[in-house]
């Protein structure tokens, strides 16, 4: 069972570029999330989804967009990358009363 899979693991972007972080889960969870973790800090919620076709903003949504066309996939889109978006991004899913399960993270640097 793969759990939550994120790609890529590392990426360097130039200011103003765009990219999509991919996230897929195989646990048939309805709820999926994107968090970012800045150095020495806890995680902050960017966006979340409660099912296919339904998404909503979290604490820090500015500069990001999401979509959820299937139960399994929840990509995060960065438009016009800025240095402030340098962070580690985690995708997670939950369902079935067992808490949240996290992917391995994507380390993004914007230069």
């Amino acid at each position, binding site marked *: 069972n793969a759990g939550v899979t994120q790609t890529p693991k590392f990426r360097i972007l130039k200011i103003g570029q765009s990219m999509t972080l991919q996230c897929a889960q195989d646990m048939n969870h309805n*709820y999926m*999330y994107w*968090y970012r973790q800045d150095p*020495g*800090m*806890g*995680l*902050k*919620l960017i966006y*979340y989804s*409660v099912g296919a076709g339904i998404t909503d903003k*979290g*604490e820090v949504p500015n500069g990001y967009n999401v979509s959820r066309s299937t139960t399994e996939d929840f990509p995060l889109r960065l438009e016009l990358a800025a240095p402030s978006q340098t962070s*580690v991004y*985690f995708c997670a899913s*939950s369902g079935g*009363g*067992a*808490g*949240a*399960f*996290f992917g*391995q*993270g994507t*380390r993004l640097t914007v230069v």
Partner: protein
Amino acid sequence: GIQVEQSPPDLILQEGANSTLRCNFSDSVNNLQWFHQNPWGQLINLFYIPSGTKQNGRLSATTVATERYSLLYISSSQTTDSGVYFCAVPFDYFNKFYFGSGTKLNVKP
């Protein structure tokens, strides 16, 4: 929003020692999760514990929801226990979590 405070922020242990990590939260919650972030950055589920006590090997956790705190006990610590321990509380039905800022544990051989 809910405030989640963890203590201590840093902890250094000699291998074999025991420790207690604390998580205080500011509002009523119906669940709480403990994670271990290893030195490679991976977040590992430890406990999903709304109340009471759970044990898994050398680790155990206790949540007293009415008093708004949770404790994580690590017994006979090993160097592989090093990393950052986070508690997280969901702030609604959809399990959107508020995270504490973590306890950074360094277990020395």
